[in-house]
């Protein structure tokens, strides 16, 4: 097994063009487990953890670009205003894992339990892929991740990062697991309010073959907020039944299975509870004018 240690993105992409079978490693929190347990023996590993180009994030044209090599610790330290993203990042593994694990790793592995993924889905993020010769393409998150651990990345490509339009409004990420740390989500949910478009966006993790959005429930919540006059006056109360109905509609979107971490029925129930709570937090945050992005 060979390991190549490119110093620049250009060098890494040239290697990927010549040796598309090269398996990229950054934080190693997924790949090393497979190596340690002898589940995988790639001929060639490409260390992309030294590529400064992947470790940056920047604002551009009202959007945010988040490099694939940005670690969860870095997000918690540097991107505080993106509350749902920070909340999701804080639930990743442990401090040791957050110091290594990257957003690009979540995207590349494309597990439906990837903690950052429901947030990227709720942000309507695009995934940016690049290859040698400056050929770069952006795909909506749902066109990139097409199944459990399945993406449409080409062997010659690397994940450059994710990007999304920055919206104004509160949001949250919540996750169900057996304890607070070192836990793979049994179910997770990100809810984001887009004040300018008067929209509610909800994404679910670990309850389907890939991350799921709940468009019907999103439309219902936006209408409920309009009917109650809450968009104009955050203090105008939303009827209790609306929270209940919203939860049930979100749960109806889930496509969970029974597995070692939980049953489908439990997961569906968890989605309803998480959705209800997330909407209540958002409504309260609008009253206290907490900004969430």
């Amino acid at each position, binding site marked *: 097994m*060979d390991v190549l240690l490119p110093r620049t993105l250009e060098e890494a992409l040239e290697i990927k063009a010549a040796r598309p079978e090269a398996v990229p490693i950054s934080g190693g929190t997924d790949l090393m487990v497979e190596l340690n347990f002898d589940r995988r023996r790639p001929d060639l*590993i490409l260390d992309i953890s030294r590529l400064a180009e992947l470790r940056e994030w920047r604002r551009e044209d009202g959007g945010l670009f988040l490099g694939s090599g940005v670690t969860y610790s870095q997000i918690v330290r540097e991107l505080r205003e993106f509350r749902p993203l920070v909340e999701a990042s804080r639930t990743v593994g442990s401090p040791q894992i957050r110091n*290594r694990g990257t957003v690009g790793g979540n995207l590349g592995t494309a597990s439906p339990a990837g903690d950052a993924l429901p947030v990227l889905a709720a942000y309507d993020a695009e995934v940016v892929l690049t290859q040698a010769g400056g050929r770069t393409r952006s795909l909506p998150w749902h066109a990139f991740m097409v199944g459990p651990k399945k993406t449409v990345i080409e062997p010659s490509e690397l994940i450059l990062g994710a990007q999304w339009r920055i919206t104004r409004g509160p949001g949250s990420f919540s996750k169900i697991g057996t304890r607070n740390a070192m836990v793979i989500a049994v179910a997770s949910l990100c809810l984001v309010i887009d004040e300018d478009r008067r929209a509610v966006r909800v994404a679910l993790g670990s309850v389907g073959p890939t991350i799921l959005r709940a468009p019907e429930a999103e439309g219902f919540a936006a209408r409920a907020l309009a009917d109650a006059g809450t968009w104009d006056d955050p203090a105008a109360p939303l009827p209790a039944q609306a929270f209940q109905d919203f939860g049930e509609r979100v749960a109806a979107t889930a496509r969970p299975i029974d597995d070692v971490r939980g049953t489908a029925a439990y997961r569906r129930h968890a989605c309803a509870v998480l959705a209800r709570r997330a909407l209540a937090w958002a409504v309260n945050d609008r009253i206290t004018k907490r900004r969430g992005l």
Partner: protein
Amino acid sequence: MLVRTKVNGEWMTADVWGGASLLYMLREHLGLPGSKNACEQGECGSCSVWLDGELVCACLVLAAQVHEREVRTVEALATDEGLHPVQEAFVESGAVQCGFCTPGLVVAVADLLTRDPSPTEAAVREALSGNLCRCTGYAKILDAVWAAAGRMREGRR
């Protein structure tokens, strides 16, 4: 492949298999068995080390990734003058039973107290959430953290 790394202040070279972890390199090539090998999947924290100053699980770092970089292990904590205050606090608080998790916990506590000399209990629990102990029930480990924090604030290293 040859990996050249600064380990505990000294440049060292190891000829490792490409798929080897940093943990394997430390234990089997460099004679540093302080970092323990247990879960090999980042769950237990007993192989916690610093890589360029950041706390990581050595089992989840590919040895080749530390080429020309700096690693600090639990072996660097004690000096000729004695134990590190965190190690002293673990001994005095009875925070060690079988001892297997201890090196990782000592490293994680030292990392926390260097960054945050007066942590809240919540911060301590979060900082140690990646380190499993199957003996103590953690109460004495928390005692040791408070004792170590006191010692370090007094300036005993």
